[in-house]
């Protein structure tokens, strides 16, 4: 039994069958990659996991509880964090505040009227946030406005915001899209380290096969909304069906 169990999920947008009978099982502490050509339904599947979309049929169980019908903030409180394709950060806030907000969310839940406390007096949370920033080597940038960061730093900041909550499952939507090779390798190292040291299960959507094969222990290939195969990286590499899906039958 995996930490995330997706069973028979269907999602239809008008006449388009975006997801057709998707089954997926993500094992605890593993890195599970979902790959597939453009329009295969990878992002739709991810949106079904975090509460942005509700599947037409099927079930999504996380850690023994159903996530269906829950709001994004409730799903996050269950222990799922999400990294977006284009970094979603609080651009008008300082880097430090960006990391402090998830700390407060983790400690105080989805709402608390703490209008008479002072952010600066929360020593424990400030330490935790600073330690996290040090881990992604951004400590010296903590007073900078998040909007003034470089693209790579924004990604690292978003990652730090997710990791500081110590999620049980981290969902990553193309974490290396548009990155230079050197940055991509740094990200791979960072993700490996996160998986090894912090015991965080990861589910990753990626186009870059280099990233997928360096990180994943299991790979699911999606094509036209349906999973083609689920296997280890070595078996996926030479799989004829995968070739077919990516290149088309004609080739």
């Amino acid at each position, binding site marked *: 039994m995996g930490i995330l169990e997706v069973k028979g999920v269907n999602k239809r947008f008008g006449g388009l069958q975006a997801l057709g009978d998707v089954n997926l099982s993500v094992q605890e502490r593993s890195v599970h990659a979902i790959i597939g050509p453009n329009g295969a339904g990878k992002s739709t599947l991810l949106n079904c996991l*975090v509460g942005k979309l509700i599947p037409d049929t099927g079930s999504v169980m996380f850690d023994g509880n159903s996530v269906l019908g829950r*709001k*994004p*903030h409730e799903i*996050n*409180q269950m222990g799922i*964090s*999400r990294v977006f394709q284009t970094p*979603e*950060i*609080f*651009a*008008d*806030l*300082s880097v*430090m*505040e960006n990391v*402090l*907000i*998830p700390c*407060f*969310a*983790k400690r*105080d*839940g*989805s*709402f*608390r*009227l*703490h*209008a*008479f*406390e*002072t*952010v*600066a*007096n*929360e020593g424990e949370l400030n330490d935790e946030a600073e330690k996290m920033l040090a881990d992604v080597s951004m400590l010296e940038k903590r*007073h*900078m*406005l998040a909007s003034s960061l470089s693209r790579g730093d924004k990604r690292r900041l978003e990652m730090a*915001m997710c990791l500081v*909550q110590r999620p049980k499952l981290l969902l990553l939507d193309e974490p290396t899209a548009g990155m230079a090779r050197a940055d991509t390798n740094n990200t791979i190292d960072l993700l490996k380290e996160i998986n090894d040291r912090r015991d965080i299960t990861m589910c990753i959507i990626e186009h870059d096969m280099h990233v997928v094969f360096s990180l994943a222990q299991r790979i699911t290939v999606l094509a036209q909304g349906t999973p083609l195969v689920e296997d280890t990286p070595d078996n996926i590499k030479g799989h004829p069906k995968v070739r077919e899906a990516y290149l088309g039958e004609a080739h």
Partner: protein
Amino acid sequence: MFGLSKKDTTFLLIVCFLTLATPILLQPFPEGSAGATFNAGYPDLMQRFAIFGIFAIGFNILFGLTGYLSFGHAAFLGVGSYSVVWMYKLLDYNVIPGLLLAIVTSAIFALAIGYVSLRRTGIYFSILTLAFAQMSFNLAYSVLTPLTNGETGLQVYTDDPQILMGENSPTSPHLFGLVMRDSVQIDIGGWLFTFNIGYYFCAVIAILAFYLSLRIFRSPFGMMLRAIKTNQTRLNYTGLNSRPYTLAAFVISGMYAGLAGGLMAAMDPLAGAERMQWTASGEVVLMTILGGAGTLMGPILGAGFIKYFENIFSKINDNMLHQWFGWMPDGMEDALIFISHFFVGKSWHLTLGLLFMLVVIFLPGGLVEGGQRIARWVRGRRKKGSGDDPEHHPKPAPHVAE
């Protein structure tokens, strides 16, 4: 001190000093001199500075921090005024029960209006609040006449119960015997200073209101509100529910507005429906943007600025212009007076409009940004390359539309 950092404590003390010394600071010109028109140190105007300051500070907690632009805050102003006058009618002229009731009733109104309006964001939220405010205005103006006395406005009549009224009780608003309209006038070498009880009452409440908003700005709650303004998607995926946060901000700012409306009736025991009109809601938006939305001092500056223009520039007439420009050659004098005529007296709105345009175009962060730029320029000349502390200056809102 007071749970504030050293820098904020200094800031608060400066604000306290400026507020308490207002009757002196706003009388820079001696009585009878040509500049005396520009003196603003008379009780009526100073009370308005403080009251609209409170209104704008509260509005800024909603608009400045969360970015939700409410066009209906005047409704709470009216609710506050009516509450206070009703307490006069039922109990006596002591302002305390009325002000407490004003805060409670405006909170209930804000909870109801906010609960519905906050289901939408952006322009739809603004339109919903505007609609609610206009509904409140029409209710007060015609439908609920028994409660509001309609067009005439609510006031105290001799046959009202006033059950706490004793033999010697004051017959105008007072705080446990301290009558609001009483003043002490001190004449020092041509300068006339008026220290009014009503003003000081408003001033103390305004300082408390400012202190409260300072605490909210520095609190985790305030940080969440600013996060809502920047990126609500990220906030939701970070495990925070934005709805109760925005609703809390809406109710708090509604309570500030109710308090301000109550104070209006505490200075002058009347309440009329016109206080709820949409122009009054628009005014507080102007004040906040002119001063600098999302900054601590901005709304107060904006409120002071607009009220000063409204009361001082509108007083300037052609006779005064003739006096000022009398020394010029005739043709030039007439031409100058002809031009200035459009900007003073009844046309003071034109000056305000131009000023507002200039601020929005060149100083999107409002007057506060202007002040910061001057300070940076001065500091830059003295010492090159001193960094600004971003933690203590939350980045001001770039534009009204955002």
